[in-house]
């Protein structure tokens, strides 16, 4: 088992300022916002939307790494996203699925049960999908994947519970979060979004 916070702490230390990240809701968002308060981070996407949203972002920023920080319950709500991800096969995409095997807010409510999420991803056509069970394994596999120019997909068997971190909720929810994200995009050197149509 890994501790999510420890893995995210390592990830934050490895990412350059121009990498883009997307998180599902809950502990993923809170801990990541605490560790990476600046930069283009879209937080708290609801169940089943994180992976595909991040894929769209990867198509908009083809020269930058886009990291999806998803969870087992969220991924299970839309496993068809694995097929789409495999088909597009974006070289700038890294998926990290924290799998605590439970719907965390409801105690021991099993999610994937005996299903193997990494094998499901592999079965969907994602070539580099694997399971991580220790911090050492995380460092050995994820850091090279960040530097490689190919799709990486990792399921992290993680302990339940959240790190006790203080986060300004405006950084991780709704329209205030969106404003932070857009401001980060506007400062991003690769952003291709034009001014609003009325300004053209």
């Amino acid at each position, binding site marked *: 088992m890994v501790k999510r916070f420890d893995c995210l702490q390592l990830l934050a230390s490895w990412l350059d300022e121009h990498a*883009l990240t997307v998180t599902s809701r809950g502990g993923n968002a809170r801990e990541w916002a605490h560790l990476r308060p600046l930069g283009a981070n879209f937080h708290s996407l609801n169940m089943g939307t994180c992976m*595909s*949203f991040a894929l*769209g*972002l990867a198509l908009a920023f083809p020269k930058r790494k886009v990291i999806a920080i998803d969870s087992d319950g969220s991924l299970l709500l839309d496993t068809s996203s694995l097929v789409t991800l495999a088909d597009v096969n974006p070289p700038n995409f890294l998926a990290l699925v924290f799998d605590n095997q439970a719907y965390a807010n409801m105690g021991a409510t099993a999610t994937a049960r005996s299903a193997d999420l990494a094998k499901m991803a592999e079965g969907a056509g994602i070539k580099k999908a694997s399971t991580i069970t220790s911090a050492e394994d995380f460092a050995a596999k994820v850091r090279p994947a960040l530097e490689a120019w190919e799709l990486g997909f990792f399921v992290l068997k993680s302990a339940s519970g959240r790190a006790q971190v203080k986060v300004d909720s405006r950084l991780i929810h*709704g329209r205030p979060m969106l404003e932070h994200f857009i401001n980060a995009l506007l400062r991003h050197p690769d952003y291709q*979004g034009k001014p609003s149509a009325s300004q053209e």
Partner: protein
Amino acid sequence: MDQETIAAIIHALKQERIDLVVTLPEEPTSPLTEAIRQDPHFTSVTVASESNGISLCAGASLGGRRCLFVTGIAGLLVGTWSLAQMAVLYGIPVFIMASYRGDIGDRSGVSGAQLFMFQQLGEPMLNTLRVPYRIIKKKNELEREIRDSHFACREYGTPLVLLLTGEVLW
């Protein structure tokens, strides 16, 4: 959908500098999505569910890429969860073109009960989600409607749906 209509849509998309087209193939719009797939101007992505398509387009659009999701009205019903997130919660401009199965005049062979269900639920669902839409029946309105709707989608900051029917579709 005939060749004249397909050419008009592709012309309007290029004028709007839309270069990413996301689809989940469905029968009435398949000649269009196939033509787009063959056109090197476009990056064409085929998704495995409509929720994928809507979420993907939201990420791409927010990231500054001009994109279109082509689906059917049944796909909008399937993608309601994602559409609710992207529309109501965030107001992300997702530009969508959908065949209006079940509109009056649809003789496509789908059972009448299914068609009537689409007709009963499609527009009320969009209204409930506060997603603006336009119904396009006439070929000569198509290019103008695409331009105006894409402008509104980006300017208002909302998903916006073009429902294709009448002589545009059948």
